[in-house]
């Protein structure tokens, strides 16, 4: 069993999940949390905690290193099956759902490759 939890500033994560589902179809066990100005962080922390159990592999994606979503995620870093990835992008989430890549290291490396200066690539 595995779960994907996306936590971001604003509705970015919720929307990225929708965008990914447009391509990859509806995903079970995918959750998103939007941190808005009036969001009570402790509340989100509790909700995320309720999704985590010993048996399930958890992949938490947060938008930026050091932000509030990140601060929520690191509360669970000591749990053995929790993986936290910061600075995620849409290709990464797609890779996760479509190619079912579960190797976090290669997932990060591959997603970096998706960032390119297209002019240079195409014009040589």
């Amino acid at each position, binding site marked *: 069993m595995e779960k994907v939890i996306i936590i971001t500033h604003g509705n970015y994560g919720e929307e990225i999940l929708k965008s990914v589902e447009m391509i990859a179809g509806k995903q079970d066990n995918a959750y998103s949390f939007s941190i808005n100005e009036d*969001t009570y962080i402790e509340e989100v922390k509790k909700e995320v905690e309720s999704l985590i159990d010993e048996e399930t592999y958890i992949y938490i994606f947060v938008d930026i*290193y*050091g932000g509030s979503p990140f*601060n929520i995620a*690191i509360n669970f870093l*000591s749990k053995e099956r929790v993986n936290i990835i910061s600075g995620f992008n849409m290709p990464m989430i797609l890779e996760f759902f479509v190619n079912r890549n579960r190797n976090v290291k290669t997932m990060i490396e591959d997603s970096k490759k998706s960032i390119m200066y297209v002019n240079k690539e195409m014009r040589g």
Partner: protein
Amino acid sequence: MKNIILARVDDRLIHGQITIGWLNKIKVDTIIIIDKELRNNSFLSDMTKQAAPDNYRTEIFNTEEFIDYYKDSTMEDILLLSKELKVYENIQIKKEIFSEINIGNIGSKDNSKKIYKNVHINTEEKKSIENLLEKNCSIYVQMLPEDSRINIKKLI
């Protein structure tokens, strides 16, 4: 001498509004978090320090440790963060350190009342505000440096 550049109540402690918003506008040497719970959790305090922006010293203290640290004569500009108004109130009662306090984020909880978009206070916090005002400390709500300051007296 310790110079407190910004003393802020923010239940998110170090986060994007601080690292990207405030730290680009104010110049400090050290970020100090006063939070008993975090202080007593060595794993989380290590994580918090690691995640804090480079180029700043980061300290996590309880109230007593902060008061001791403040006495130290080394010159230092400080950004101070705490989740709770109560922390500032307790310090101010012992020693009138603060001339002003910034309120950033106080999330809603049971029995709290929304006084501004991201600020919710309960009766205990209202009492802390009154005590701080009485102890010569002005309080204003301002989320980001670009926002205008709103005097707390206008909101409660």
